[in-house]
């Protein structure tokens, strides 16, 4: 499971805060109108108290218990609160972690909570620590989008790497992460990053390489990185000379 960081949780917090404010404003108008019309002060006072009480302390407890660890803000950000082992929350967990917002908020604007999160490996705030909970991310549906190398690797580029090249799982993961970022980074930076590891691989395989980024892409392919023929023929060049790195479109859309 992916533990969610402060920024996404912050956005979720903001969304929830906005919803709470809107609910209060809406109900306040209703209560004020009713109070004026009915002229029965105890009712409007009572309504206001219950609304304030509920919004301030009940909102999170209500939603996190009814929606299995989610609030509207968390749902919008695809976050969920779970027990540390991934189990669902009990009512006590929900109450504990949300009452401790009082401590996390101090001295103002969740400062304590943020500091505690910064020092914790799983971004747990005080409430999470006491209740034994954490907030995980359930999003990531964009992972698995086609991994493309542009322009496609030529046969010559692939030939540089011996077919017997073998990498460890961690190395393959690292290469894949890097190749997925190619194109989103500054080209100079890409080159720089690739240059950090490319000589190491080249030395191990006993080969020479030109462009480190292309070399790493070729290495990934030759070492068994997930390669399939593109679903439609590439626009330029012939298929015999080019290989495109792409993942299956196996993800449910």
């Amino acid at each position, binding site marked *: 499971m992916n533990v969610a960081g402060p920024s996404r949780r912050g956005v979720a917090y903001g969304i929830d805060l906005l919803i709470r404010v809107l609910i209060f404003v809406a109900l306040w108008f209703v209560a004020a109108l009713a*109070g004026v019309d009915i002229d029965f002060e105890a009712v409007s*006072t009572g309504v206001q*108290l219950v609304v304030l009480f509920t919004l301030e302390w009940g909102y999170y407890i209500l939603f996190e218990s009814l929606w*299995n660890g989610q609030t509207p803000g968390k749902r919008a950000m695809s976050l969920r609160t779970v027990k540390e082992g991934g189990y669902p929350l009990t009512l006590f967990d929900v109450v504990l972690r949300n009452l401790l917002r009082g401590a996390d908020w101090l001295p103002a604007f969740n400062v304590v909570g943020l500091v505690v999160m910064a020092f914790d490996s799983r971004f747990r705030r*005080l409430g999470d620590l006491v*209740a034994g909970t954490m907030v995980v991310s359930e999003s990531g549906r964009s992972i698995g989008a086609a991994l493309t190398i542009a322009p496609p690797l030529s046969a010559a580029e692939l030939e540089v790497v011996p077919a017997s090249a073998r990498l460890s799982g961690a190395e393959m993961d690292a290469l894949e992460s890097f190749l997925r970022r190619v194109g989103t980074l500054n080209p100079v930076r890409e080159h720089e990053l690739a240059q950090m590891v490319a000589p190491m691989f080249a030395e191990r395989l006993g080969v020479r390489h030109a462009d480190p980024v292309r070399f790493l892409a070729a290495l990934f392919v030759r070492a068994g990185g997930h390669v399939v023929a593109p679903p439609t023929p590439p626009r330029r060049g012939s298929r015999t000379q080019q290989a495109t790195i792409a993942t*299956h479109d196996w993800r449910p859309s």
Partner: protein
Amino acid sequence: MKAPGSQRVSQDAFVAARRAHWQQLDQLLLQNKALHRLHPDLIATVGRLYRMVCADVMRARGAGYGQDIVAHLDLLAARAHNRLYRATPYRISRLWALVAREFPRTLRESWRFLAAASALFVLPLLVGVVACLTDPDLATAVVPRGQLEMLAEAYAEGFGGGRSESVDASMTGFYVYNNVGISFRVFATGIFFGLGSVFFLVSNGISIGATLGYVISAGAGRSIVTFIMGHGAFELTAIVISGAAGLRMGYALVRTEGLTRLGSLRRQGPAVARLAVGAAIMLGIAAFIEGFWSPSGVADEIKWATAAGLWLLVMAYFVFAGRGEEGAP
């Protein structure tokens, strides 16, 4: 065992073979409908698919397949898990067990913390009252003068003659909101080794006492005491209980009995949670009384009798509820 690099073909085969199952599970989870409302066959299907995906995650990891596949399966398994194993619905019987037995038992078991919290709250309160009865101006040291005067004026008017809506509604709202917030804060700040609880108990005791003393010396004593006593049975006690829960939490951090601080805290977690939930329920009741009953125009004598009844009820509940029954607290 095959080397990681030799999986090139089998990853395709793997994905091709399993893909339909993954999609089916994803679709079922996307329905975003409580699982128990689905057709029984579908529920069984989700369970079956979930176990398949768990196995697939392991296979994908072990075989060193692409990160994206592992990540996707991981997430799919996690989503299915969270849907399948959601906490049991909160049964009324569970809450009833808390109210009828567990909460009062835990209270009696944590009597040391309760005693400490009571002392930390009540003594400053009495000091505040006495001090401000002798010299009302002292109250301005802890509560803004404007607020004190507004309160004294409001209580001097009493509740029989109908209060002016706009002033009172917002004012009472503010105080309830404030008091409930105080109570929760008293609890929450116990995480700072109990120091927060101590601070908030003492400071709130003083300011409540000072306000009381000021208003009484301004001649509206009868009115404010009448107002406070009704919901006070729940609210003042709930503040003390919250404080006790906070102190217990802080004490667990200080006296770890060989555990790590976090472990020690976790061990006290259930008891602390019971106290906090119990106090929260009491505050809910207090809010209703304060909203509907305390400011109403009912005759003072009836309010006194009710208040006395409520205090007796609460005390009897603390002392006697949940006794004589076997079973875990």
